[in-house]
């Protein structure tokens, strides 16, 4: 059983099977699309409809309704619009170049690769068409970029190659050289799209609201109006977003490619810490390429999405998959790099130096040699800040604890930890950590920094402990504020409150002898 639809074709009423109607409707829409930019397009369409009506009449002598077979036969007789292209469009180009120019004006320009006239993939040629510049100029710019970004250049090219469709059909070739994209075009495009959407909604209306509310009810008009306003807003917002996407995406991309391989590398190398952190096995092409792909593919996607919103440039599914695969590859590259980096830090080592301090005084004044240091380009890790200093590195952030000495000696214990690719290297790294203090009469003055004499920064840390024999008195100067940490005392006083007082080491621990 089949549902029958009634249609009006060239002023005549026909019964037609529903499935056949779908095909016919599609076919006529294709034709409508094909002739929409052509002068007299409506008339051509009407003529064709008339002819189809005639063919219907011939077939309806013996039966009641048009079937799918009839439609298929008739569309075969009438032919596909692409077949007209063969026979007509070339005729136009022969008639005169002006005609083609006219046709071009009707088509708004889209980016394609020009495979007919290409060096590699036609990317530069396509760009030249789009931006209306000489292809030689475009290629020179590209080669310039190639020198700038070095190993990434082929990837940049391949990305464009994947992302841009090639102009295959005559229509696409015309679009490639079509009217320049400007604000007027975009506005026109929005209006066009709006019309298409309105058509669709009207169809929807006809099918549903008419049945429910009647053809011209007040409610239906309201629905119609609302839908129109909403779609209008959406389309407009879409185009605005599209422009924004393209604009900012373009800027981002420009920066990434002009800096990722040249600028960023320079920038990084100018950063004073870089040479202490990276070595060749880490900062290599794998990381650079991975990072560029990883960042630029989403940006390119955003640009393409913007183009789609503004210009309805559609990207073939294969290219989308290609981009996605490239992005996955960039993940892999980054993971490989991350593994390299983590390897550099996989082993930890500790080095403890105990330094005996000999003094005849039984009262010591502890203070720190505070210098206002600029830690602008410091690396910050686990509370330690490290920055280049003279030919080495220096760090701050070490902490001092004061405990009771077990052997009645005055000792300072320096406990350094560091990481490295293996135990050996980690150990070497700890041995490079140095810390100085000065004993002048009864003044014990600590430096406010430690040095790292190895040429690499591998998370060196330093902990200080001062061991005091029982009976010794120390005075904690206010300059120690940032150095002391969690010093146990018999009063359970906070570190900050301990400053500015005399403390005596008793058997039970430090106790204040100047506090009230």
């Amino acid at each position, binding site marked *: 059983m089949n549902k029958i639809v009634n249609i009006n074709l060239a002023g*005549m009423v026909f019964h037609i099977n529903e499935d056949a109607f779908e095909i016919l409707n599609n076919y006529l829409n294709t034709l409508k699309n094909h002739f929409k930019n052509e002068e*007299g397009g409506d008339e051509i369409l009407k*003529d064709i409809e008339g002819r189809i009506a005639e063919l219907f009449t*011939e077939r309806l002598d013996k039966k009641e309704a048009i079937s799918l077979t009839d439609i298929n036969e008739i569309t075969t007789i009438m032919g*596909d619009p692409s077949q007209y292209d063969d*026979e*007509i469009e070339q005729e136009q180009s022969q008639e005169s170049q002006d005609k083609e120019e006219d046709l071009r004006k009707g088509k708004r320009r889209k980016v394609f690769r020009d495979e007919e006239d290409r060096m590699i993939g036609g990317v530069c040629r396509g760009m030249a068409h789009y931006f209306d510049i000489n292809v030689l100029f475009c290629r020179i710019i590209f080669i310039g970029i190639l020198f700038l970004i070095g190993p990434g250049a082929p990837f940049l090219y391949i990305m464009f190659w994947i992302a841009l469709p090639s102009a295959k059909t005559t229509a696409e070739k015309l679009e490639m050289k079509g009217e320049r994209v400007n604000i007027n075009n975009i506005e026109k495009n929005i209006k066009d799209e709006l019309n298409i959407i309105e058509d669709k909604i009207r169809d929807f209306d006809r099918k549903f609201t008419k049945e429910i509310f009647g053809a011209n009810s007040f409610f239906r008009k309201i629905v119609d109006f609302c839908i129109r306003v909403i779609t209008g807003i959406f389309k407009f917002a879409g185009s605005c977003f599209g422009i924004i996407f393209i604009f900012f995406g373009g800027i981002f991309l420009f920066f990434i490619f002009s800096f990722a391989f040249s600028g960023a590398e320079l920038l990084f190398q100018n950063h004073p810490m870089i040479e202490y952190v990276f070595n060749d096995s880490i900062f290599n092409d794998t990381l650079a390429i991975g990072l560029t792909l990883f960042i630029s593919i989403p940006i390119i996607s955003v640009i393409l999405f913007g183009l789609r919103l503004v210009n309805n440039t559609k990207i073939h599914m294969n290219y989308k998959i290609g981009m996605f695969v490239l992005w996955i590859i960039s993940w892999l590259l980054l993971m490989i790099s991350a593994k390299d980096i983590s390897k550099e830090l996989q082993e930890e080592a500790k080095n403890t130096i105990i330094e005996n301090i000999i003094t005849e005084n039984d009262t010591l004044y502890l203070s720190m040699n505070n210098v206002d240091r600029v830690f602008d380009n410091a690396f910050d890790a686990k509370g330690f800040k490290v920055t280049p200093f003279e030919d080495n590195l220096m760090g701050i952030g070490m902490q001092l604890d004061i405990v009771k000495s077990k052997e009645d000696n005055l000792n300072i214990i320096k406990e350094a930890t560091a990481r490295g690719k293996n135990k050996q290297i980690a150990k070497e790294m700890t041995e490079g950590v140095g810390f100085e203090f000065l004993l002048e009469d009864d003044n014990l003055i600590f430096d406010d920094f430690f040095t790292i004499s190895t040429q690499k920064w591998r998370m060196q840390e330093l902990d200080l402990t001062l061991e005091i024999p029982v009976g010794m008195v120390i005075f904690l100067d206010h300059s120690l504020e940032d150095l002391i940490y969690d010093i146990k005392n018999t009063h359970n006083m906070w570190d900050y409150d301990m400053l500015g007082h005399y403390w005596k080491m008793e058997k039970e621990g430090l106790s204040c002898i100047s506090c009230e």
Partner: protein
Amino acid sequence: MKIENTQSQMRKGILEYCILSILKNEEAYPSDIIEKLKKAKLIVVEGTLYPLLTRLKNAKLLQYRWEESTSGPPRKYYSITEKGNTFLLELDNTWKDLAKAVKLTTKTKKDE
């Protein structure tokens, strides 16, 4: 170079010439014209003809009148205009020249 391109390039100018020639002596409606062109294997699909007729009409080389039909919608009967006749005459000459030229060149090849 594709053979189809060359073939359709050869066909394209001739198609207009033939349509004008068909309409030179008598008016006709599209189905008649299609019939003749199909027989001559100049066109494959009917859809090709309608844009052409409209274009020729817009160039004022053809005109049409409506006629009621017993079997279907009203038909457009096309006929040639004054301007179309002049145009056709020129095409006639061009065609003769071309035919001569082709004959001459292909013959020479055979003789060699």
